[in-house]
């Protein structure tokens, strides 16, 4: 069985300068795969290439064995690729609940006219989506904040909203771009539990992180990126001892 996401020799150049070069990664379903590397290694570029926000210079991206290298971002999202953003990106004036409901977009069935005119089918769907969003809020322990403006909440809460929105899309592949940056260990640990459960439900999770302890505790397989190239991969503790990895991080 092939992995949900396969990157084959992927490269992306910006005006001749390679940001990502010759990267091959496999993200199997039901597991959390880690992608680490120092600042500027090209981690977010990889995420943007997978989600179709950037296009490949060369190489291939396979989703469930299908070549999606040339697909546009909305098509990939509809195919079940979801992500969170390193710099939080919400609708700050909308409520927490509405921000999460936006994640259900690809599952909405009510027609355009029903939605434009507020016909019963649109109303029924809206209340159903609200109920499902509340279930997510419950899971992330944010029920009490449902009606608050997303922009008025703390950093940690805003990160959770991003994650709920990504999960609302019911993804096959979930890309988490530094999901616990700026959080303390307790907050990070409570999210780790949620990530494990998501993976256990059969979702392929790619975790991009800086926090080594967090990555070590969660991932079954680790890739290390430095200056746009993979310098190591394998089982987390072994990768952590790899001299090349230590050098990249210490800049020795």
């Amino acid at each position, binding site marked *: 069985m092939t992995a949900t996401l396969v990157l084959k020799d992927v490269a992306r150049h910006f005006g001749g300068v390679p940001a990502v070069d010759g990267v091959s990664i496999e993200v199997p379903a039901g597991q959390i795969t880690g992608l680490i590397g120092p600042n500027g290694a090209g981690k977010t570029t990889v995420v943007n290439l997978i989600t179709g*926000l950037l296009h490949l210079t060369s190489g291939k991206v396979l989703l469930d064995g299908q070549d999606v290298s040339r697909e546009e971002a909305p098509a990939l999202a509809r195919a079940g690729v979801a992500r969170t953003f390193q710099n939080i990106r*919400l609708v700050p004036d909308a409520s927490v609940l509405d921000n999460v409901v*936006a994640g259900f*977009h690809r599952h909405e069935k009510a027609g355009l006219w029903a939605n*434009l005119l507020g016909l019963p089918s649109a109303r029924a769907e809206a209340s159903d989506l609200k109920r499902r969003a509340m279930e997510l809020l419950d899971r992330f322990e944010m029920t*009490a904040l449902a009606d608050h*403006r997303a922009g008025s909440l703390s950093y940690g809460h805003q990160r959770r909203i991003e994650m709920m929105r990504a999960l609302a899309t019911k993804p096959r592949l979930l890309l988490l771009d530094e999901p616990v940056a700026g959080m303390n260990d307790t907050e990070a640990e409570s999210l780790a539990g949620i990530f494990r459960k998501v993976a256990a439900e059969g979702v392929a999770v790619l975790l991009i992180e800086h*926090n080594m*302890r967090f990555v070590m505790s969660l991932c079954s397989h680790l890739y290390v990126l430095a200056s746009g190239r993979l310098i190591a991969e394998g089982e987390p503790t072994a990768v952590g001892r790899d001299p090349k990895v230590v050098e990249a991080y*210490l800049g020795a």
Partner: protein
Amino acid sequence: MMNFFFTYQSLFDHILVYALLAMSQYVVLRAGVFSLGTAGFAALGAYGAALLITKSGWPPAAAIVAGTLLGTVSSALLALPLSRLRGVFQAVATLALVQIVLSATQNWVSLTNGALGVNGIPKVASTGILLTVVVVVVLLLVAMGRYSVGRAMDVIREDETVAVSLGISVPYYHRIAFIVSGTLAGLGGAPQATSSYAITPNEFGFSMLVAALTMVVLGGRTTVWGALVGAVILTSLPELFRVFADYRNVVQGILLMLVIVYLPRGVADTLLGLLRDRRLRRAAPLAAVVVAPAAAPAKDPVRANFEARAHL
């Protein structure tokens, strides 16, 4: 009371017509489309209705519907190329449309009477009819804003990258917003012609474009109430302060600057936001503690790096 109403009746009509134009502007801004086309579509609606009544002898109701549809059809045609553009390019393209429509109304004399405008239009759009139309449009826009379309527009306005990452097709919703905007502008223009006896090209020029835009910025662009509040304030201010009539544009400009600096979200949006925050504080005093802004830094590379070293 009735006396007051009759004294200011033309002002009410004016407010109602401009409320439609402001709502036309609101729909595009809410979806993140920087369209300035409202004045152009309003001119099409007004001239379409006025000429059908005076030259072709159409019944006024049918002419108003036709004028509105003219706004719909022309915006639908323009929506195709326009949804491929973004930001300032959309603004320039729609500005060009306004210029083209204005040139036509001024120079296609055989059809439009040129700068003299169209006269002798029967006044059929009474205050009651205008009010009914505005109420219906407000109800429709509230419905539109509440469900899937409004939500998708909000996401697109705030962040197109997020929108595409959620599978939302940006050009599709830009087109919807633009067509609804064109329809509403046509619907604002047609009754304008049929409530004021005469129209001239000047009415639909730069000043209308700026007025519609100012109303939405002043009122707020995330709810339909912003457009209404903006229309009421900007239309009635010059009438209530006639002493300043000569300085009308100056006062308008100062007002706009003050709002942009101190209430960047607009009068209505700011008020609604404050009301909501207060209601939430009352409902859940506990939650307020949780909401206190956390001191968490956006990202601390030094700390992250340190952690990484510590565990290698």
